């Protein structure tokens, strides 16, 4: 231990660079696990959020029978409890409780457990994000969908949710970035993500300061890159699509329209 430590340059930058070069594969393996968990948990969390938000958005109609009213109320209640519990407790506590609590029923690896925990935690936040997204959509969109005969489900899936997701995209992307950082709490259940790996390296070299500078830079690299990619996607979503006409001929039915319109 002493011998390993003594070869490392004493200054912060020199020490960090030395540690990074020596243990790069460990750091990057950790970073890969961090990305794997945060990306898959964000996607799964988004799906959970869509489902939960849709459940919470189900409206009561005067035509509902007593039974369907009861089911709807019950589902609302479950959804609300889920959101409150997972937003109201630390993910670190959820991780320890669920990993150990469920291990007697499911034989899962720490990484599987990690993805599960971050997913349901993210789902609770996503549900609120999607709900805000749904609320930002004008009621007229829903009414127009219903007025052409779409069912509630069709209106949700084809009309409301695509727009809600688009509006909520910055917040959804932000959840991903938050997850990259927050997966670090999974070290408590020994998931070999970036923080856990860094801790191991620091334990070997016995240089916490220098090791965690490397860790911080890698986290920053991950979040910065992710943010840039998300921005690019957002710009792409905003850019107008499909210009130009389907046909060059002017309709004959309404001659008064001729050349009155200019394409923008």
């Amino acid at each position, binding site marked *: 231990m002493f011998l390993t430590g003594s070869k490392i340059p004493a200054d912060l930058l020199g020490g960090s660079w030395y540690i990074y070069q020596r243990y790069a594969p460990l750091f990057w393996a950790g970073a890969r696990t961090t990305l794997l968990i945060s990306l898959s948990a964000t996607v799964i969390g988004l799906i959970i959020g869509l489902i939960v938000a849709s459940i919470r958005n189900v409206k009561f*109609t005067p*035509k509902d029978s007593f039974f369907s009213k009861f089911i709807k109320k019950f589902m609302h209640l479950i959804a609300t409890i889920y959101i409150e519990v997972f937003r109201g407790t630390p993910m670190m506590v959820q991780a320890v409780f669920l990993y150990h609590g469920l291990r007697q029923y499911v034989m899962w690896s720490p990484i599987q457990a990690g993805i599960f925990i971050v997913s349901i935690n993210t789902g609770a936040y996503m549900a609120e994000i999607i709900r805000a997204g749904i609320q930002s959509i004008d009621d*007229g*969109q829903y009414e127009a969908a219903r*007025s*052409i*005969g*779409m069912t509630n489900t069709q209106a949700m899936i084809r009309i409301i949710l695509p727009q809600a997701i688009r509006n909520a995209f910055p917040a959804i992307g932000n959840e991903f970035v938050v997850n990259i950082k927050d997966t670090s709490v999974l070290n408590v259940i020994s998931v070999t993500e970036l923080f856990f790996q860094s801790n191991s390296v620091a334990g070997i070299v016995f240089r916490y300061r220098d090791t965690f500078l490397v860790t911080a830079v890698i986290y920053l690299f991950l979040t910065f890159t992710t943010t840039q990619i998300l921005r690019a996607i957002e710009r792409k979503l905003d850019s107008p699509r499909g210009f130009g006409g389907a*046909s060059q001929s002017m*309709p004959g039915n309404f001659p008064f329209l001729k050349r009155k319109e200019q394409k923008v």
Partner: protein
Amino acid sequence: MSLIKINNLNKSFGSNLVLKDINLTVEEKQVVCLIGSSGSGKSTLLRCINLLETPNGGEIIVDGQNIMTANFDINKFRSHVGMIFQSFNLFSHMNSIQNCMIGQTEVLKRSKSEAKAIALKYLEKVGMLDFANQSVKSLSGGQKQRVAIARALCMEPRILLLDEPTSALDPEMVGEVLEVIKQLAKEGLTMLIVTHEMSFAKDVADLIIFMDQGVVCEQGSAKEMFSNPKHPRTKEFLARILR
């Protein structure tokens, strides 16, 4: 048999009785204009007809069928009744032709290619063929409303309900939309139109209904209503609006 027959229709929001014992008959191919001051219940009546609002009492009989019975297939019914909104309500994440196709493919289960051909046909009819692939966000108000009309027509409705189709438009765009509606009237589409455009109503309506405070105050042909209104409220309203 009349296409739409409304008997003693009542609708309230909370304790606010908005429609009071409405009785109304609309014949096939008839164009009916609903006029009346703000808050008189015109929109609510229109929205009751395709059950966007649930009435509290009475009957709405369309094509011999009471649409207010418990096991009535509302979605199928709505696919036969077009609705045009004051604020267009085009699906804003789609372009014009997608707006016209989605109801056909989702509700009527038409194939994509069939839906596309029909969409193009009606976009041409409303003079919006050149804008088929354009995002609806970039259209002017008049263009949006014409796409909305095309979207409704693609469902090949038996009845078209129009709630102040030109009220949100700049004056120079009102004409292009009214022209489309006039053309539809000429072709014999049954329409109920809420409008504040009296000269248009005079032009196009077979029947004019004047509503006041939730009741049908007076109804008659355009000629009768405008040249010889009987009810004092009608006279007052027309005097105010025609000036």
